[in-house]
């Protein structure tokens, strides 16, 4: 619905001087002026700075080139990724007043490439949620249908790109938080293999599952951003030590590709039309569609949430108001801890910290956390088996298109279940991308999720690009 050019288009337009950087910022400003109050996609905007930067670029005749491939490209950053000198709220009251003193590695790399940061986008508090209704700054409304959610937790990033408040955005994905909002808002969301992109500066939710993801209008844009932000980082000991491979997005689908339909994602769909939409999109594709079973997918939400909640309870232990953020001071130190954390966290975050703490506690850790770890290993093994038979795996990104605001918020479990198709790839550390199905359902976009074996990010992007072009 946004009429902004894609990154790839914009690079050409800027290079040929058919558009100016300031014009793009002005257009974005206009879109924000019209759509932002309803969408509520942004928590903080840096439009004055963005304009000043763009003016400077135009004045000096700077254009995107090999050294600065994203020169002048306006990008939105999810507000759980640190931008130096700017507030980083994570949509939580407990971080009120916190100004990040450093750039996340992904932000530094985007800045080095010449990108312009438009603002920090709204999210579910601390990235915990599937609808962006858990924000201390209010819910995000889907620009495609403002009665509906934009998805979560990267709802703000998706909505901003969808209505033209930015050309592209960085989101984060722990169990589907970038792929699902992308699907709900008619965009592309790419989750790299765990370890491809540095997490330094991404406020941790679940350390072994979090990844920074591009949310874009096209696969090519996602690949462009990925090529800038990916690669080993000494600041993140979990990054994969090898540089990402070269990508060739010009090609067609190679011969003999086998695509596996994950049985468990097509059976018992809440809305059968979802499965049809996915299959119809592949009708023109010269690939062999095979049914593949990954039985453990059925419990992916249990395994995912248990691990994520446990790690979250640990990662959020640092929020105590002592060194930064909001402090609720009481007479004694102990009471201050309780009050600060009790007041500062919203309901969903509180719920997850409670359960996560329980899952790690003495006497329960083996039945809960350690069991989830073993489940994870078993699931990864099932994926490995499946990839012996097929090159890629296919499923709908979510069980339904964007649901209505308020529909699932009262039932946490129902909300968690919206991650059932996206959680497995995160658990198995695999790369996965959500692209658009050709058809809509009730006028709403439908996301197709393609998953590839670990480290085959380049191949996945090449394939997804070819499918997108069909």
């Amino acid at each position: 619905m946004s009429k902004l050019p894609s990154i790839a288009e914009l690079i050409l337009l800027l290079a040929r001087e058919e558009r100016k950087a300031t014009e793009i910022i002005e257009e974005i400003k206009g879109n924000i002026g019209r759509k932002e109050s309803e969408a509520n996609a942004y928590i903080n905007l840096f439009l004055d700075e963005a304009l000043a930067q763009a003016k400077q670029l135009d004045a000096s005749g700077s254009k995107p080139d090999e050294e600065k491939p994203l020169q002048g490209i306006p990008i939105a950053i999810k507000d759980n990724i640190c931008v130096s000198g700017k507030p980083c709220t994570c949509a939580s009251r407990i971080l009120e007043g916190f100004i990040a003193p450093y750039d996340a590695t992904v932000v530094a790399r985007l800045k080095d490439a010449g990108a312009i940061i438009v603002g920090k986008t709204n999210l579910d508090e601390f990235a915990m949620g599937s609808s962006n209704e858990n924000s201390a700054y209010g819910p995000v409304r889907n620009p495609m249908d403002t009665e509906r959610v934009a998805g979560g937790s990267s709802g703000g990033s998706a909505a901003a790109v969808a209505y033209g408040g930015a050309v592209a955005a960085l989101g984060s994905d722990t169990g589907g938080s970038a792929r699902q909002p992308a699907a709900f808002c008619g965009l592309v969301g790419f989750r790299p293999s765990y370890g491809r992109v540095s997490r330094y500066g991404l406020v941790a939710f679940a350390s072994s599952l979090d990844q920074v993801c591009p949310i874009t209008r096209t696969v090519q844009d996602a690949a462009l951003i990925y090529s800038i932000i990916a690669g080993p980082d000494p600041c993140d000991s979990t990054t994969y030590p090898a540089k990402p491979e070269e990508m060739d997005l010009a090609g067609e689908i190679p011969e003999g590709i086998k695509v596996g339909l994950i049985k468990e994602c097509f059976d018992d769909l809440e809305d059968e039309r979802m499965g049809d939409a996915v299959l119809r999109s592949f009708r023109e594709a010269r690939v062999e569609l095979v049914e593949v079973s990954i039985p453990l997918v059925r419990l992916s939400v249990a395994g995912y949430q248990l691990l994520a909640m446990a790690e979250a309870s640990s990662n959020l232990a640092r929020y105590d108001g002592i060194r930064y953020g909001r402090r609720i001071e009481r007479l004694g130190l102990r009471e201050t801890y309780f009050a600060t954390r009790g007041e500062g966290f919203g309901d969903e975050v509180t719920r997850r910290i409670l359960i996560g703490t329980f899952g790690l506690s003495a006497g329960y850790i083996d039945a809960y956390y350690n069991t989830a770890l073993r489940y994870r290993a078993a699931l990864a093994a099932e994926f490995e088996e499946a990839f012996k038979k097929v090159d890629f795996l296919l499923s709908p990104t979510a069980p339904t298109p964007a649901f209505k605001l308020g529909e699932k918020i009262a039932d946490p479990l129902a909300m968690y279940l919206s991650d059932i198709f996206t959680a497995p790839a995160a658990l198995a550390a695999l790369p996965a991308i959500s692209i658009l199905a050709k058809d809509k359902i009730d006028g709403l976009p439908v996301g197709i999720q393609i998953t590839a074996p670990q480290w085959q990010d380049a191949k996945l992007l090449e394939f997804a690009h070819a499918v997108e072009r069909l």
Partner: protein
Amino acid sequence: MTRGVEILKVAELARLELKSGERQRFGTEFERITAYFAQLQKLSPEGEITFPYPCPRTPDRPRDYDIKVEKLSGYLKDGYFKIPPLLA
């Protein structure tokens, strides 16, 4: 395992103050969600994920970081972070 007691113990461990209304609500949700998770135990899964690469090691070269704690917190005294006392 009484519901109320469990949730308070966990809240204590996590330093979360729960108001009385919240205790009931969170308690119920907690029960429901943990019961859902318990399904995993019936699977008796096996296996261990191993990290594909080892812990990287950084040379021991000190670096000065110009961080101004005044920008992080307003609760300072003579350069220290100031917090309420530990009541006996």
